[in-house]
């Protein structure tokens, strides 16, 4: 909890700078964080066995919502991600799926003998691929892949035999060249850009070039808060959302980045402890999956901004400005807290 608060306040400071000292943005983020904490506490009150029972139901509901997008979704920037209930709420079903999928998989393996045999693996793969596929065709490749990853993490934590993983890995490697021709042009471009941002310095490469300059020019101790030229003069795009780590690196330097990563590390460690303390498979798998997914988010975001991964729209958890993703995160933490705080009561 303490670690969470430090990360969040760290994030707020950086966000304040990233938004040009705009307090309105910070206030909005504070409101969201408040909501997030509220949601977290709320979910923490739900007993885990209730979560366990409703997991398949929620998963089904999530699937239905994903399907509803096709007739009723709102199109924004060429992809249908949003479901709008006029005047009431406005949300992305894929965000729900981020939690429902690990839940349903944890539920599934909770009932099964572990390590899983071939059949449960195939079933769980199906459970995993259907929502991931639906999200990818929205199209929202980033979220789809992240959801698939969170699902795979459950599988791996559940004891997916290494030999399966090796085979799937080999298969992916072999099909990689074929995949190259399947993916869309802009996606191909992003991968090429990662390897050589200078091939289109004013277009696709712009973001990554500018973020690398921002990070690099920060040096060891940074230019000081509010003094980052790359972000304040708008050279750095998306400086308060996906590329916020570049602002941090520019203004607080290497020290800032390492401090943040250390906090993240502690947080992840704490999450793992919680998962190890969980008393049933469902709790363990869910906690573990959420924790590792969180780590993947951190890695993918910083990796993307620093130019070792292609650009995918993944925010930096707890720091980036943005609503729904933040709420999902807190809901996830709520699930973990629920499992953690109810362990004595649910003792079998």
């Amino acid at each position, binding site marked *: 909890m303490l670690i969470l608060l430090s990360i969040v306040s760290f994030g707020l400071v950086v966000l304040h700078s990233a938004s040009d000292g705009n307090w309105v943005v910070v206030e909005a983020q504070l409101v969201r964080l408040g909501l997030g904490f509220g949601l977290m506490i709320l979910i923490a009150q739900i007993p885990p066995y209730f979560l366990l029972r409703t997991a398949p139901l929620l998963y089904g509901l999530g699937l239905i919502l994903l399907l509803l997008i096709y007739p009723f979704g709102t199109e924004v920037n060429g992809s249908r991600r949003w479901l709008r209930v006029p005047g009431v709420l406005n949300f992305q079903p894929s965000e729900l799926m981020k939690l429902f999928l690990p839940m349903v998989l944890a539920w599934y393996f909770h009932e099964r003998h572990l*390590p899983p045999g071939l059949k449960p693996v195939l079933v769980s793969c199906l459970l995993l691929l259907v929502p991931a596929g639906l999200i990818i065709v929205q199209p929202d490749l980033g979220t789809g892949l992240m959801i698939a990853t969170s699902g795979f993490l459950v599988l*791996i934590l559940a004891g997916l035999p290494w030999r399966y993983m090796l085979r799937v890995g080999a298969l992916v490697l072999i099909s990689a060249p074929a995949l190259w021709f399947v993916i869309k042009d802009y996606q191909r471009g992003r991968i090429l850009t990662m390897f050589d941002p200078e091939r289109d310095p004013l277009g696709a490469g712009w973001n990554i070039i500018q973020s690398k300059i921002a990070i690099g020019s920060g040096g060891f101790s940074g230019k000081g808060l509010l003094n980052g030229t790359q972000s304040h*003069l708008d050279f750095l795009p998306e400086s308060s959302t996906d590329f916020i780590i570049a602002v941090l690196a520019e203004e607080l330097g290497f020290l800032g980045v390492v401090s943040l*990563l250390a906090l993240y*590390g502690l947080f*992840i460690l704490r999450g*793992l402890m919680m998962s190890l303390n969980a008393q049933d498979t469902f709790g363990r798998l869910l906690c573990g999956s959420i924790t*590792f997914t969180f*780590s993947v988010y951190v890695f993918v975001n910083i990796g993307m901004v620093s130019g070792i991964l292609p650009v995918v729209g993944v925010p930096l958890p707890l720091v980036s400005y943005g609503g729904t993703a933040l709420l999902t995160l807190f809901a996830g933490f709520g699930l973990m807290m629920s499992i953690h705080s109810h362990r004595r009561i649910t003792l079998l």
Partner: protein
Amino acid sequence: MREALALKDHRSESQIYVERAATGAVVVLVLFSLLILRVGYLQTVQYSDSVARSEKNRVQVVARPPVRGLILDRQGVLLADNRPSRNLEVIPEQIVNMEDTLFHLATVLEMSEEETARFRRLSGRTTRRFESAPVLFDLSDEQVARFEANRFRFPGLSVQAKLVRNYPQGALMAHAVGSVRRINDRDAASLNATAYASTDHIGKLGVERFYETELLGQVGYDRVEANARGRMMRVLDGVKPINGQNLTLYLDAGLQAAADRALDGRRGAVVAIDPKTGGILALLSRPAYDPNLFVQGISHQNYNALRTSMDAPLFNRAIQGQYQPGSTLKPFIGLIALGGSTVTVSDSIEDPGWYQLPGNERLYRDWNWTKTNDGGHGRVNIEKALYRSCNVYFYDLAVRLGIDRLSQDLKQFGFGQASVLDLPDANAGLLPSRAWKRATRKLPWYPGDTVNLGIGHGDILVTPLQMAAAVAALANRGRWVAPRMAQNQSFEDAARSSPSGAGQLPEHVWEPIIGGMEKVVHRGNQIYGENGTAWSYIGRDIEYRMAGKSGTAQVVAIEQGEVYEASIIEERKRKHAWFIAFAPIEDPKIALAVLLENGAAAVNTRRQWLVKLLIIIFWKGPVLECRTSRWRGANERRFCSKATRRSNKFSKPSWGVYLVQP
């Protein structure tokens, strides 16, 4: 699937999980280390490179143009200043569809056909397409307002305010001051790109060209912090531009205006020089053009009209027009002859009205020769030869001097060379010699050529400026002063421009010649054939003493190849009329050369223009000061800066300008 029936083994499941979680933790650790390494790499190894690139992103250098120096006349009247102009500028690279943009722009700004064509031409350049270039000039308030209201529709276009050259005196000073022109691509290739970083104009003619470096000043720059869209956020630091030096000329706008009124729209040139300094007091060539037309770029239509006009308004007659000097050469030949003791003051000849070379049938006539051979001036000495402008005397004198002496000694008055210090376009005229004729005509020098040269005809050519300079040397009794436009300028090559042999004539030669020239104007009320040639139309009206000489030059050729009405051709075949003078005789303040193209038609015309034209310089005459002030009062408010007006109030002019009315 046998195990499916087996009991769940919580212990082993937990074991698997611990194992997997530990693996995961290691993987996360590795990945995070990778991130730290990566960020560390960027922030150490690439640190300096990144800092440089972020600085380059952030800081832009914006050139600040210096303000071009003003050009003032001797009284502080503005001859060239700068006025604000709002131009529409375009960055060609940023225009997606030029034709679309132009179409909408033409509607918004109500552009004319010609403006549209010019826009297309100026924006269609192929080099430096990323730089802003002006395409529409001098927008009105309304146009600016309309553009700004529609600005969102025109990315890549903007209205920029700049200072551009302005010539408040218009055509009056066009040939004296010159003008600036917009720098074109050809100029740009040879210019120092830094010095002209944000300057659009360069001096192309006259003083504007010669003093380009001084007038231009030095470019400054601002280092500004700009955001990603190129918007300036703040000025970090920079170097202020050093504005161009103001240039004060010897020119007197009042004198120039008086000369212009005197010419009364006729083609011709007036050059007045201060014999003390060589400063050019007036440099007028008519017809002229409005130099303001050229500043922002002249339209094809206007330019063609100027270029093809039969009156050649673009032609600077005062410094480029080369004419035979006619009888105005006579005083100078007289000086040489007296100096070399070829004749003395008392030597005289009998003028029968014609002259014959020994052994040659041809008659060289005097201007009052009659068919009955009973003209002539009778007994003529050098003084009379001047005030009666006797041709026969000078035919004889020239033959006695010989071509070699003539072509050698006439050099000392600046003939045959461009001796003006700061007018780069001035022509050198032509002083013929044996060598010259052999080289250009492949012919030997005939004695007849010498005879013609004696009265300033034949091959010799001079410009009005050269003539004025020669008169100044005469007024100075031999002291050569190189003509110049700008005050307070040191010229390294001033010595070189001094003609060879200048100032070598003995002292006794001056007064007889000047006396003869005085009589040209002042000898009057005599019997027929004894008055000065200019007395009847000048000398009667003035109360001070001046030395003058009239002259008539043959028209060498009608240059225009086109077919004109016969009456026009007739007019253009008339001889050119010269008049040279300096005054006052004892302490010359002004030396003057006037040329009127085809002005020697009828005695009446000649009389009229000469009377109107004579510009006479006074010194502290109460009447004239009053007239001068009136001119000032009217023009001062328009042309002078406040500071000049203030200083004018306290310093009374030491001399003034007066135009004699017929």
